[in-house]
């Protein structure tokens, strides 16, 4: 099991725990069980955990699949720098968050799951893993050919010889293709 990044699994587990905390909390608050303030806390803690864990970290090797719409939260999580990057901090944080929810039956499942996530994060931290944000790829392409090509060709090969092609106008307006080019629907 050489290349396992435990943090990835800890992240899934923590996200699931957050949802369970929220669900258990809502049930207890809605039905007004005894001790429901703990449930209200659990809802808040659950939401916080979900927000913290939603942006997936970057894998060391290979490409990482982003969760849908995570870039907004990545920006927020990135701001906290070493606090969110270090997994020891996360392990302790989750363990601490889990404890108060353990006093009420509805949320005790969330405690157990978050506790397990905390343990896996501890394991990840011991192995030196870190949370790195997934950056957006730069939008513009670097100039082709070191800037020596002024107007890269716009037609894919095979291209007819230059004489049959109209000379491109000065300001790179759309080219009229002398040979019909079918655009393949992707």
């Amino acid at each position, binding site marked *: 099991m050489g*290349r396992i990044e435990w943090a*990835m699994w800890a992240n899934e*587990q923590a996200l699931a725990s957050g949802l369970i905390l929220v669900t*258990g909390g809502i*049930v207890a608050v809605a039905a007004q069980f005894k001790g429901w303030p703990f449930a209200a806390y659990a809802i808040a803690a659950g939401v916080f955990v979900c927000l913290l864990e939603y942006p997936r970290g970057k894998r060391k090797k290979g490409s990482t699949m982003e969760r849908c719409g995570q870039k907004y939260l990545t920006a927020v999580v990135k701001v906290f720098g070493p606090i969110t990057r270090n997994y020891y901090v996360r392990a302790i944080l989750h363990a601490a968050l889990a404890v108060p929810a353990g006093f009420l*039956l509805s949320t005790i499942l969330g405690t*157990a799951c978050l506790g397990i996530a905390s343990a896996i994060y501890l394991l990840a931290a011991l192995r030196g893993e870190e949370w790195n944000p997934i950056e957006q790829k730069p939008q513009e392409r670097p100039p082709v050919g070191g800037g020596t090509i002024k107007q890269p060709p716009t037609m894919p*090969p095979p291209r007819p010889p230059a004489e049959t092609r109209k000379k491109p106008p000065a300001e790179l307006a759309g080219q009229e293709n002398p040979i019909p080019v*079918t655009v393949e629907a992707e």
Partner: protein
Amino acid sequence: MGNWVVNHWFPAVVIAAWLGLNVFLFVYYFLLFDRDKKFYYTRVLLGSALAWARASAKCLNFNSMLILLPVCRNLLSFLRGTCSCCRRTMRKQLDHNLTFHKLVAYAIALFTAVHIIAHLCNFEWYNDSQQAADGSLSSILSNLHQDEESNKWLNPIHTNSTTPAYVTFTTIPGLTGVIITVALILMVTSSMEFIRRSYFEVFWYTHHLFIIYFAGLVIHGIAGLVRGQTAESLNKHNPEHCVQDPTHWGRNNTDSHCEEPEFGSIPAESWKWVLTPILLYVFERFLRFWRSRQRVVVTKAVVHPSKVLELQMHKKGFSMEVGQYIFINCPSVSRLEWHPFTLTSAPEEDFFSVHIRAAGDWTENLIDTFQQQKPKTPRIEVDGPFGTASEDVFQYEVAMLVGAGIGVTPFASVLKSVWYKFQHADQRLKTKKIYFYWLCRDTGAFAWFNDLLASLEQEMEESGKTGFLNYRLFLTGWDNSIAGQAAFNFDNDTDVVTGLKQKTSFGRPMWSNEFSAVATAHPRSVVGVFLCGPQALAKSLQNCCHQYSSLDPRKVKFYFNKENF
């Protein structure tokens, strides 16, 4: 739409039946627990949370029974074999077993959530009833039979100084419930697609927590905490009538004679649902073990460029068909892991082979082990073959085979087999012409397939049947230098990239051109289009099939088959 119905009617029926049974079970048992007189007093304490809990429990039993069945691959293979009289499309659906397994797993997760929420309410309200000292119906019911040794009580909580959490952890159903739910959650989080594809071992080993799940499930109901009025008691005490005057139960001086109600538990029944699948699964694992013990002789191991290992093997009694796959285990790499690989040899050959590409921990270790060339080749265990054979390819007069990337692997088997059949004038082979399209980013990892095409090309030339196989290779990952080289070597006989007679094209194929060329060349044939590749490609091929099929039944028709090899 018609094509979809023909290919997918069976899974649609299965899923509809499964959904229907779930809905039926849920609604039936919900109404039973919500209306039956037996549970009248239970409902006084618990409201409709009783019905929600019991109905979801039934569905959980049903789905827990189903979930083990799709992963018994040897059993499914056996069914497939004995059903040879069935239509092929039906047998092919057994290949969607893992999809069904996941669907059932989602259902289990959903019903677990419902069940737990309902029982949270139940525990809380039982506790409230026990602690209520206001002489209400709930407190009267809760105090019934609490002091005696008899088992006739209704409220499982016997003291009024406890909490639901304490009760949960000191009763069998509560404790087992928590344990199996935690096991279930761990199984679910480690089976997320991202984790499964990147860290297979985490998924595989965590998934064995299912043993705890089933053990806990069977034990879960034995304490009988959910109770209804016994039949005997119902004869002497009609709840609808007696509920009006609870303080006078058991006394003889009233007009309406009501004895104290007595309650009994619902017997545990999870074991009835899951016993057979558990036994089948145990048998399946034993069968896998037994099959793996049979000797596999590695007759040849070749490491191709770009870290591809070809293993040619021999096993007594092994017989395969085109397009099937096997599971391979290498104890020296990992004792417990089995990984699937498509067979790349034809059934007519006297060995079976797989081409293993480095794509993760296990494959890399395996390739390293073989590369070290130890004097004693590592032992290999094989389970299989599985999967439905793709015999359909041989039924079409003209076949268009499209393999994208790794999807080209099963076509190795297909092409070799077709060639053998063609050479020996096999009657089962109706194919007269094959068009093969190979799309890949770069040929590096598939250089071995390259060699296969080269040897086929040579054999065709030697037997004078060059027109039989027409293949095109499309390199979608070209760059300027490759294109420059191709232009430079334009006049050479063989292609500069592959060394084949057929020239490589760069970029993606223009399917409309290809289809119209085939349609023009074979104006009256039925053409089968087979794809092993990504979904987007499937869509465009399907569109082309519709577009270029003539409405006239005598003229050319394209039939699209997406094979999930």
